[in-house]
């Protein structure tokens, strides 16, 4: 029998949200299986690929290695970056450069890129290399780079 424990709450995309009672559960699985936000993807479980990247208080974090008991700030996921009806500049740049192929890594890529642009509104190639360590199996890197630069130019405009 499972012990009845208090349900934990986190602020997710601006709303207090119940995330279950297992403090050890990685944020990734709480988001996907408990909260039902499926935009954040499972890729490796060891923080090696970045498909699960979310923001905690604006900082990019690999949620597969972040137990919910240790989350200390507000969580933002791809679902809050923009919507089909109201795309962010970054998402529009991803469409303009026709970045995604299979698309599975792109939630994480977008979250990593949005954190980069907040810190460095005009990133150099070296900045992009350093911040964008997420894996893309389809090899869309050249287009990700182009889309980040396009978004940077639009945000600055």
């Amino acid at each position: 029998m499972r012990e009845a424990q208090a349900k934990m709450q986190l602020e997710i995309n601006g709303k207090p949200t119940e995330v279950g009672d297992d403090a050890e559960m990685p944020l990734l699985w709480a988001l996907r299986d408990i909260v039902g936000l499926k935009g954040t993807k499972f890729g490796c479980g060891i923080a090696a690929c970045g498909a699960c990247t979310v923001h905690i208080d604006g900082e990019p974090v690999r949620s597969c290695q972040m137990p919910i008991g240790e989350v200390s700030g507000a969580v933002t996921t791809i679902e809050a970056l923009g919507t089909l009806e109201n795309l962010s500049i970054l998402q529009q740049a991803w469409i303009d450069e026709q970045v995604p192929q299979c698309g599975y890594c792109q939630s994480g890529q977008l979250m990593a890129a949005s954190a980069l642009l907040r810190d460095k509104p005009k990133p150099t190639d070296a900045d992009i290399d350093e911040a964008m360590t997420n894996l893309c199996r389809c090899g869309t890197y050249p287009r990700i780079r182009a889309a980040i630069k396009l978004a940077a130019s639009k945000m600055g405009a």
Partner: protein
Amino acid sequence: MNIRKIARRTFLIGATAIAGGLAVGYYYVRKPYPNPLEDELSEGEVTFNPYVKIAPDNTITIITARAEMGQGVQTTLAAMVAEELDVTLDQIKVEHGPADWTYFNSAMMEDASPFPFLDESFIVEVTRSMMPPIAKLLGIQATGGSSSMKDGYDKMRQSGCAARLLLIAAASQELGIDAAGLKTENGSIIDPTSGQSITYGELAAKAATLEPPSKLVLRKKSDWKLLGKSQRRTDIPAKVTGQPIYGIDVDLPEMIYGTVKMSPRFGANAIFHDDKAALAVPGVTAVIPLETPAGSGFGIIAENTWAAFKGAEALEVKWGEADHPPEDEGIYALFDKALSSTPHNIMRNDGNAETVFADAPREVILSAEYRVPWLAHACMEPMNATARWKDGVLDIWAPNQAPTLIQMTVSGLVGVASEDVNVHITTLGGGFGRRLEMDFVQYAVEMAKHTEGKPIKVTWTREEDTSHDAYRPAAKTKLRALLNPGTIPTALDIHLATPSIIKSFMGRTFPMLSPAGPDRTMVDGLFDQPYTIENYRVSTSKVDVNIPVGFWRSVGASHTAYVHECFLDEIAEKSEMDPLAMRLELAKEYPAALGVLNKVAEMCVWDNNFAKNSTRGRGLALSLSFGTWVAEVVQVNATEDGIVIENVWCATEIGEALDPDNIKAQMMSGIVFGLSAAMGQEITFSDGMVEQQNFDGFDVMRMHQCPTIEVEILETYHKMGGAGEPGTPPAAPALANAIYAATGKRIRALPLSSETDFA
């Protein structure tokens, strides 16, 4: 089996035997199958053929029936229909549609005939033409072999055209105006004289009752509005907003979760297991044994995926011995043994290689041996499937490349007819050939027998995915050339030892059938290259080793091109020839090959003396695969931190470029895929188990390593080729040749990281 199914089977075979017709035009004339869309129309919606549905509110849905795994296939297939239906891509909805025999892939079967692509002799063409009816007979709906454009080219355009003609006929009756006087525009029929306009949606119900057209005249290429032009992909908005479109995102009422823990040794079973610790994990509800042709192990059922993963970790199992040598050394000894015996099959034999080598002085013979490793597919989305076995109906939701094969191979697991298995095809987070396999679906179905009708989503860990793949086969190749200083060699003799993909795939997919004849996937990219050498022999020996092997992006060519094109550079050097000049001479009978070689040389401004005495170097490679000719040049810089890949130039001859931007994206993707593998990927064995488990042991090229990539497309060849795979084969040899040019180090085994460092 009920009457309808018997009738369908009989009729299918009959229609195949009599007509062998493929075009949708024949669909109307002979109606060889029921239209699968008739079973799933929404209120008021009508269907014209298996590819087009129109609703009264003018919602136009195009069924593409090929898996979208990143290659952009659904956008271009939809554009084929939209072109003839005279609508734009933003006016339509694109759906994969149901698994059904109607959507068989004839081009994939045609390419599977055991003849080189360049052979257009009468007997070969006759044999090829027999393959589509066989595909139809087997009803294999599959996505692979870079075949979707070729397969869809006629039938998709014809289906759009047929629907448009019916809509015009309906408008003609409605308006009392001769059909010849009516025009179509943006989803409406227009009478130019009166200015009257009716939408397709308003006409659809009536149009669907009319006699189908017997003659279809397709648009001339010069009149194309969509095809031949770059389109914005229809799947991208969902992919930048995190929509739950992948198999792993499936969410159903009452759904429970699971994972698998399969034997880490292929062919072995559990000899002991204890599930106490697993069942003690909060949220784990059951541990069940799994025995399928694909593998042996356990399924862990839980309240959420994380609990299932923890349960799998806690499950205590002792596994038996693998039924192959436990260490790499013993495994590769099997390859050596195969290479030292007489070849099993000779796949190309121009001139008389045997005699000329026997007569030649040793000093003009150049010999080398190459080795390539096993490789995992490493799709970004780990293997997963959701299954529900309820009230005698089996439903499967899965990212997969072969839905009708799933129907055929899982129906027996629950004892229903294959047509009673509903396969729902989701978007795929990568495929690369991995999702032609049945294992991930079979395990989910077995587990669904233990959930009292509740759907179960079974997600593999990355570790399970990496260590239980159907790997790109390892291979060893012996080559020898008879040199001719200053010009091309007189003879080239190649003997390749590798396991047969077809044998392995059939063994786990259709254990009752035994495949006969040579397996061309072993020598694709080796026996069929556009080179003329007086004495040219390519022979193979099958290596019998029970490591599962499968179709990995570009299949045989993924490794044969590396061996062939690197050895050509070795020959060029010993013959004191420029690598480009030598290939131009070898390929002089093939204008398409010369076209891509000259184009890539122009793009990079090829100069054999490039960066002599510097740390930079360039390498060239050519490969013809899946009907597409690709030449690539890679430029590297051997820095103190290691090799930096700076540039890749790629020229591709595809015959007909239906969506140039997407073809460029596919070439870029294929290049990165090939470079990733060449740089650092390998699967190795120790203690009978795969050593690599996750991306820390089996990595992929990252942003900071990715070169600038330029692609140019040529369209002069008389046949249309594929796009998803042909970019991959030349990447490894072009990189290895560039490293040789920069460093003088000739690396004859992949991955290159075993002998050099990358920055």
